[in-house]
């Protein structure tokens, strides 16, 4: 789930980023305040309509929720055991709907637009030394480095297998950390070269 932008011209794509973030805040707040099965049902329908309006393909939408496939059943079972089936249903459906709503925002908003909006929102804080540009850049870099680190892990895993050390955690973690730190250094140089530090 790297929340990559899915290009399009739907009403959601054209809605200003600030308005979308406000809608997301309202939506998730409503889920937490009006906690009931009815609210979850209405929210699910609203979200489904929003996905259809945004013309997000079903497969792409499901990909966004894939990382929850392990967490949700465990969370559901744990909450059922502790609080009963109704609370378990409410908690897991709140999480599912909130993640799906957030994913819809990232699917319909370019990261650059998100960065610009965040920078604008944080601008008043710059007076007190808040590094608005850097915080916004961290968001973009976080999204960007996910596939890079995934590549590093895959390369190291292959190398580990080739050397017959499939079960060694040290043979996995040590090179991954070293390569990731190396990548961070290279990225830092590239950012300076592209004028970030100026």
């Amino acid at each position, binding site marked *: 789930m790297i929340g990559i932008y899915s290009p399009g011209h739907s009403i959601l794509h054209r809605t200003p980023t600030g308005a979308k973030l406000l809608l997301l805040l309202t939506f998730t707040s409503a889920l937490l305040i009006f906690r009931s099965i009815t609210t979850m049902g209405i929210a699910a329908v609203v979200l489904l309509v929003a996905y259809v309006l945004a013309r997000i393909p079903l497969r792409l939408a499901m990909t966004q929720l894939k990382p929850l496939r392990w967490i949700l059943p465990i969370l559901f079972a744990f909450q059922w055991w502790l609080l009963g089936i109704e609370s378990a249903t409410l908690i897991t459906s709140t999480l599912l709907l909130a993640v799906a709503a957030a994913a819809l925002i990232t699917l319909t908003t370019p990261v650059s637009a998100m960065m610009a909006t965040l920078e604008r929102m944080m601008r008043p804080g710059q007076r007190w030394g808040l590094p608005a540009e850097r915080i916004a850049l961290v968001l*973009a870099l976080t999204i960007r480095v996910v596939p890079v680190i995934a590549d590093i892990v895959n390369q190291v895993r292959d190398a580990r297998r080739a050397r017959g050390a499939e079960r060694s955690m040290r043979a996995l973690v040590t090179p991954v950390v070293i390569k990731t730190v190396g990548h961070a250094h290279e990225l830092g*140089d590239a950012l300076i070269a592209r*004028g970030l530090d100026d």
Partner: protein
Amino acid sequence: MICFNNVGLTYEDRNVLTEITCELNEPRVGIIGANGSGKSSLLRLINGLTTPTTGTVTVGGLDPTDHGRDVRSRVSFLFSNPDAQIVMPTVGEDIEFSLRRNKISALERHERISQALALVGLSDYQEHPAHLLSSGQKQLLAMAAIMVTEPDILLCDEPTTLLDRRNTRVLIDIIDALPQQIIMATHDLDLVSQWPRVLVMEHGEIIADSSGHEAVATYKATVDR
């Protein structure tokens, strides 16, 4: 004009560069030599990524250590690993990132992005996720992201190392056609053999400074001896 005046660079008690003095004025300057000979360090000094331990470097009269912003606005750097150079998730956004501080209209911004993409043949990839590009395409994207800022000087640090033969050809054809001054560190001797000036580096020193043909012959002789 790029001037090195008695430049030395020491890193953890190791002499990386020793007494480098030269002026680089030619439109194409190659730097060749073994791994660890100081090629990359020489390039990094030019745009202030590294500060010399002794001596001075100036670019158009400005010291990159003191005037990093001014120098880097004129001097761009193409690294060997494009993955480290691409910052934004999509192709168009990464090029736009280079223009974030340019006070230009949205229309001009769009036009410059389109021109940069056309320069490297990635016009159809503007909204494509950067991580799904091939290594060659990533290097072309890194190139476009640099050229959109219209620099005067382009520093290339082994830009073809991770590329196959075809993508190397594509990148070199683009570089050959650029009007900018190019300073390139490379292991590809064929690439720089026709260039007007090539420096040969060994153990942090310039051991030959001549035309491409002569410099390549000198370097081959040092490898064979």
